[in-house]
Every structure is written in structure tokens, then in C-alpha cells.
């Protein structure tokens, strides 16, 4: 008996109005995220992975709209929810972590002020209660001296610390899903390891599911239970890490795996390259 997935997306499409007509950078994307799962989304630029995550969080820019056959999150139908319900639900159950924390944090406000804002609005906590939670969240993400941090400004922290702050902000409301879009790309590899460690810990302790978007397939293979492969707005493969390591079915996934050098890559051979006509190969796979 399978429980309802935490996030259920069927036939998601994102449409954007441009001067030259309408484009659909995301089309026919369907996937689920179960409670407590860590699901990775891998793709290159133009794959639509960021737009997909924005669509889920109802954060698409003005000229873009999301259409789907089904879009359910935490037992609620996002397509038919009122804006108020939507805001409430997404404000409490969903946390988003972006690549560049400097542009997500308001540089002119202290960290404490930004952190308590969201949780006070959605949970109606008093200021003291909210601050206490904020300090607790900062401690959870292993920032030293949380009370002092609350009084600091974003620019006073390092990149890794800012990223943790973002995560802490998201945690304040105890979300059931954390959507992290390239959270470690701008960070050094050692700091990256710490942030990933943190996300895994949160997943284990709080049971938050994680939708981890990254271009780094090696990283995802170490962290995720399942990986979604996106290419040019479509979901080309949905596989477990075991399947990824064994032999992916789709040629794009295979090429992607072969193209990324890691510490065990064969130095004498050329790196695999992604074939230009993936659509044709796609049809081949479907016919097989």
C-alpha cells in the first residue's frame, strides 16, 4: 500500500511569452517525490531544471505560467488552491535554497530580521518565540554563536555561512520539502561537502524530503536516492542511483556520466561527449 507522494507532478509545462511568440522551455515533465526522499535533478543549461523548481514553488516570473495535468504537494492540489492557501502552504511546507545566497538575502537587513519575518507571518509567532527559533535553526545548521549571527548582515558572513543561513531560514517552518537549486555550485569543494552533509542530516533528523538540483551528476550520485535527468525541457530519464551506476538506458544520461571527469576517470581516453541529436536517440530508446 503506497502512501501518497509528497510531491506529485504530472505533465508539467511552463510557457513563456516573449517578443517572438510563446516558448515552452519545460514540457511534459512528470515525477514524484516521496516523503523523506532525496531526489536529484541533473541537467545542463536550458534543460529547464530551474524553471521546474520555480513552477513547483509558484515562483515563476510574470511572463511565465505553469500548466500541469496534476500538481499536488503535501496532499493539496496546487492547481486549484486559492492564492492565500497556496502562499500559506508553500510558506510553511516548502523551503527553497538558491545558488547565490547573496542575491537571496537582503543585504541591507540583519539576518535575524529576515529570518523571523517569514515564520511570524505564517505561523503567527511572537517576536521572542520567532527569534528563539531562528537561533535554534542557526544552531541546527552548525553556525557558531547563533545569537551574534542574528545581529549580523549578510555581507559579514562567508559564502558557505550564507548558504547555511539560507537553509536555516528555510528550516524555520519545518518544511516537508527542501528544494535546493545548485546550492553548492558557487562554493569551494570543502564547503560544498559541509553543506551537502548538512542537507543529508536534515533529511535524516527532520524527515524533510530534498529536491536537489545540480549539474554535478557525481555529487548527486553520492547523495540522492533517485535522479531525474532533464534535457531541453524534457525529463529523459528517472532512475535510481544503482541504475545510474549500472547502465543508464538513455544515451544522454550515458553521455552525461561519461563527460564528467572524476577522480577515477581514465586519463588516456577522451571524455565522452553528448551527441547533438538527442531527440533522434530518444526516439530510438522509446522504440526499443
Amino acid at each position, binding site marked *: 500500500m503506497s502512501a501518497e507522494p509528497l510531491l506529485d507532478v504530472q505533465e508539467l509545462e511552463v510557457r513563456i511569452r516573449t517578443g517572438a511568440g510563446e516558448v515552452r522551455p519545460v514540457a511534459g515533465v512528470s515525477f514524484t517525490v516521496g516523503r523523506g526522499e532525496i531526489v536529484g535533478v541533473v541537467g545542463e543549461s536550458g534543460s529547464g531544471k530551474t524553471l521546474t523548481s520555480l513552477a513547483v514553488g509558484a515562483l515563476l516570473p510574470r511572463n511565465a505560467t505553469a500548466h500541469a495535468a496534476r500538481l499536488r504537494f503535501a496532499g493539496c492540489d496546487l492547481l486549484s488552491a486559492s492564492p492565500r492557501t497556496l502562499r500559506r502552504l508553500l510558506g510553511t511546507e516548502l523551503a527553497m535554497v538558491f545558488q547565490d545566497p547573496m542575491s537571496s538575502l537582503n543585504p541591507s537587513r540583519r539576518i535575524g530580521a529576515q529570518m523571523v519575518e517569514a515564520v511570524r507571518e505564517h505561523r503567527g509567532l511572537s517576536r521572542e518565540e520567532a527569534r528563539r527559533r531562528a537561533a535554534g535553526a542557526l544552531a541546527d545548521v552548525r553556525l557558531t554563536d547563533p545569537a551574534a549571527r542574528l545581529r549580523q548582515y549578510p555581507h559579514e558572513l562567508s559564502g558557505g555561512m550564507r548558504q547555511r543561513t539560507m537553509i536555516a531560514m528555510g528550516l524555520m517552518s519545518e518544511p516537508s520539502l527542501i528544494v535546493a537549486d545548485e546550492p553548492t555550485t558557487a562554493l569551494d569543494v570543502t564547503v560544498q561537502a559541509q553543506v551537502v552533509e548538512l542537507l543529508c542530516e536534515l533529511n535524516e533528523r527532520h524527515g524533510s524530503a530534498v529536491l536537489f538540483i545540480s549539474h554535478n551528476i557525481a555529487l548527486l550520485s553520492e547523495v540522492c536516492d533517485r535522479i531525474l535527468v532533464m534535457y531541453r525541457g524534457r525529463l529523459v530519464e528517472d532512475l535510481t542511483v544503482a541504475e545510474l551506476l549500472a547502465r543508464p538506458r538513455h544515451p544522454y544520461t550515458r553521455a552525461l556520466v561519461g563527460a564528467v571527469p572524476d*577522480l577515477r576517470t581514465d586519463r588516456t581516453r577522451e571524455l565522452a561527449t553528448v551527441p547533438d541529436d538527442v531527440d533522434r536517440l530518444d526516439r530510438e530508446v522509446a522504440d526499443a
Partner: protein
Amino acid sequence: MLELRGLRVTYPGPPPYTAVEGVDLDVAAGAAVGLVGESGSGKSSIARAIVGLARVSGGSVRVDGREAAAARRRRLQELRRTVQLVFQDPRASLNPRMQVGATVQEAVAIAGERRDARDRRAEARRLLELVDLPAGAAERYPHELSGGQLQRVAIARALAVRPRLLLLDEVTASLDVSVQARILNLLRRLQRELELSALYISHDLSVIRYVSDHVYVMQRGRIVEDGPCEALFSAPRREYTRSLLAAVPTLGGDRWRRRPAGAPAPAASANPND
């Protein structure tokens, strides 16, 4: 080919900031050397100092046996024909108001070997072909090309002056992985075919391991360790190098895995939000 001894690079500030301190580094003729370090380690400053974009405040830089630090005018001109630099962000390193063919052609003109405008144009096209760019690319402006294509243009431009040493500063960092693969393949091939020496600078250990014969590890302005590639990666001597290597994700590694790959997620009732 390249010899750095006790190199110190200081930016005037204010306040004055020493990005590189006491660095010894060698690139033999025809060799591919990797320089790896995290952000702020000073690796880009080394590249900039070699070509005269940053001030060398101490130590020596010998290119092809001759001193190049604090080079002026003529020496700088010569230096720039021997050593060339490819920047990290190709979109920022190409003049947005010049067609890419013109940019390469300009470099050809500076190399001075071809007198005729027609010859220069032909040479520019030959270079663009060398880096696997389609014929029509020469008339395009930078904003009309992709990152990977632009980086190829940047490489073509660098090659136009016939350098013997190529400095590649994070040249694939802003590119997609599939594009990175092509560029790395291209660079390895060009290095072999043109018998170039290369200094690859990157924060990405996997990339450095793939392209280099000899590797230097930098931390906070200093060289921490160096050695032949295989040796350094399989048996690093210094703690810092070990910690860097430990943090690199490997396909199918299990550093953070709490359950075996492929096992189902915990049951719904485990969720405290219920």
C-alpha cells in the same frame, strides 16, 4: 619553459593585499601542468602576473630562460607573443562590439606574420576551424554565440599570436559539463598537435587530474604540495591535499549515503509533520 621562483604578487589596495607569496613553479616545454586551489588561493593572480596584468612585487618569472617580471614595452610585447592567457568567462573576455572573426583577425595582425588583409582573414578562419567552429561563426557577435563557442573563439585568439605557453584560467568553470568535455578534449588535442606548454588553473580537482602531467596545490597564496599527477592523487602527502581530495564527489561514492543505493525511502509515518 616557465620558471617561477619566490613569486610574490601584491595588489595595491588600499589596503595592500598579498595574493601570492613565495611560489616556485615550473612548466617544462611541452608539458601540461595543473594548478589547483580553492577560491582566494591566488592561482588566478599567478596567471595574471605572468602576462603582466598584475604586479610582481617579489621573486622572478622566467619565460623561455629570460626574466619577465616587471617587463616593460618591448619586453612585454615579446612576452605576450610567447605566453597567452585564456580567461574564465568567455562572454566577458570578448569585445561585445566586435565580430568574433574580427577579434581573431586582430590578433593575427598583431602577430605580424601576414601583411595582406586577405591573408589575415584566411588565417583567422583557419584558426576558427582549428577550434572546431563552423564557417559562419566569424561574422557573429559574442552575444549570438554560446559559452562553449565563445571559449573556442578565445582559444583561437590566444593561438593566433603563436604562443609557446598557454595559461588556461578556469576556462571551463562557466560551461556546461558536456561543453566542458569537448573543450578539454580540444585543448588536449591542440596541446599535442601544436606542441604547446600549458598551465591549467582550476578549483576542480577532477579536471586538473584529467589534463595535467604535474600538479601544484595552492592554499592562501602558497604552494602546499606538488608532484606528478598520479602520485599526488593516489598518495597525497599533505593534510590539506588530502582534505581536498576527500571532499571531491565521485560517481557512485557513498560518503553521504545513509541507505544503500536503490533502497526505498523511509515510510510516510516517519514524518514528524503528520
